[in-house]
């Protein structure tokens, strides 16, 4: 850092880069967009197809059963979301701050849903 009270010229980075794309120093190629588009459409077809098939369940413990259909549907939806976020929304090429922001949003959403559902699910456990 500069010594106290000594004015010094800031670097004139403002003037130097009018020419290049003035934000992302990384422009995503349309080929990638096309690949993502196709993946998303395939995912859609997959999830529709899966909903017509009974994928069964998994008895984890007495009274706790996991049904695979909703799990698969959500998994496909989450994958599609990740693709849109990373590539269409450029998060893969963004700053750490952007990634942290996206992560914290997801986290808060999960806290809202998860902790609320935890109350409902544990009611069935009765008293101590």
């Amino acid at each position, binding site marked *: 850092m500069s010594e106290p009270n000594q004015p010094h010229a800031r670097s004139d980075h403002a003037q130097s880069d009018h020419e290049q794309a003035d934000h992302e120093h990384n422009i995503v190629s349309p080929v990638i967009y096309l690949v993502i588009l196709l993946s998303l459409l395939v995912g859609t077809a997959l999830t529709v197809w899966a909903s017509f098939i009974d994928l069964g369940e998994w008895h984890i413990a007495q009274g706790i059963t996991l049904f695979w259909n909703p799990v698969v549907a959500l998994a496909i939806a989450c994958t599609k979301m990740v693709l849109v976020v990373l590539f269409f929304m450029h998060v893969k090429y963004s700053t750490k701050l952007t990634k942290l922001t996206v992560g914290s949003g997801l986290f808060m959403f999960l806290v809202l849903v998860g*902790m*609320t559902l935890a109350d409902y699910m544990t009611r069935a456990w009765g008293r101590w």
Partner: protein
Amino acid sequence: MSAATIVSLPDQSTARIPRMNFLTKENGLLSWLLTGDHKRIATLYLISITFFFFIGGALAGLIRLELLTPQTTLMAADTYNKVFTMHGVIMVFFFLVPSVPATLGNFLIPMMVGARDLALPKVNLLSWYLYVIAGIMAIYTMAAGGVDTGWTFTTPLSTHYLNTHVISTGLAIFVAGFSSIFTGLNFIVTIHKMRCPGMTWFRLPLFVWANYAASILMVLGTPVLAITLVLVVLERTMHIGVFDPAFGGDPILFQHLFWFYSHPAVYIMILPGMGVISEVISTFSRKRVFGYTAVAFSSVAIAVFGFFVWAHHMFIMGISNYAALIFSLLTMLVAVPSAIKIFNWAFTLYKGSITFETPMLYAFGFMGLFTIGGLTGVFLGTTGTDIHLTETYFIVAHFHFVMVGGMLMAFLSGIHFWWPKWTGRMYPEKISQLAAVVTFIGFNFTFFPQFILGMLGMPRRYAAYPPEFQALNVFSTAGATILGIGYLLPIIYLTWSLKYGAVAGDNPWQATGLEWQTQSPPLTENFPEIPIMDHEAYDYEWLEKMQEKEVASVG
């Protein structure tokens, strides 16, 4: 009170308010109504929230008057319900939530980070307009007959069983919520992206950290309230919905969604006040804040943990025992960062050169009253005691101690502290010290008896109560009268000071911080050139060196 003071005013016979400042830059109503200047917007907010504060205060006066007698004397029980509901709605959403952020935060944050304005000035102005629109909707609601659900809008009472103006109140709060969201969003972007060269995160004033943490809460929490209100409005209109058991819905779901915001809301309300206290205690002890890093991180910790504890408002409502256990444990956790702050402020005072100007008096009041309020919060966070104390006056006393004894005192502390910077004029010290003391005395007489009333079992939100509680209620109302005087005085003398107050100069408190290195009132663009931050926060040695240099360089 010691006669020592750190106030250092310029020679009054020659001092003048600088002719070019943000207040004089442009004239005319439109220059105010279409401004992008964060300082003008802060001024607009200050006027608006003061207006709503007095409406909320008048409603409080009505409450206390009614509670002088055990029977319903002044008003029917339904009317009483409306009075305390509107008191809560106005005080929470139209005063406390925007109080420090929208006024002091808007005014100071760009200057404190060394920027010319907030990142999004138009969004800032929009935020104020949304507040005003929401306020008009709230006033309409009151004029049209009010709402009597309590500020917590518990369902299915609010969606099914009442005929009062739930929808318009819900919509008013919805709009006010977006005002709050936009303010918080603006602050986060500004603090991340517009710090001047040399202004690292750990050189920021703690006021900025506190507002940053509150802004995170505003941005992530308020939208949940918004959707909850939308669902309530839909349910009332369509007579079907997810909150009414008669339709298959769940009232607890409403409470989960409502308190998911409303608990972080209390931290939205208190954190900026804590930021003010950090600044004031440092300045009036002439000492850097002890444990800067701890105080900074504790603000963020309060914000993060504040999201995990909401169901402690629902212990008796029918949540599962296991959920109650988890939320209770987490509530213990969230008390820790607040306590850390109190300890750090106490250690800042230790061996400091303490003087007792008005902002410091309010800060002392804050420290004592917030500590009591916070501790009673811990009692309420333990499920065992909460079962007996909830929905009694103990709760009322608890939140008034933290919100009024804490937050409102911090707000007044901040207003007095930055008044000279904002207006260029000092407020009159003696009467303001008197007002601070009157407020403190009035506050304790009003709300301490309510702890006892709660322990004795008096329920909250009741217009009529068993006669054995009358004595304490009368005591409380007497205190409220004193408190009212304490709050009226500042309006009078602060307005007086606009014309007759002493000229303050740049830095009457000899405080550190970038805002004190500019003229009072500041220029519209804050700084002639963007400053470079080359010293740590609360660096009083740097300030001394600066002042020596200034003296040495005259003539």
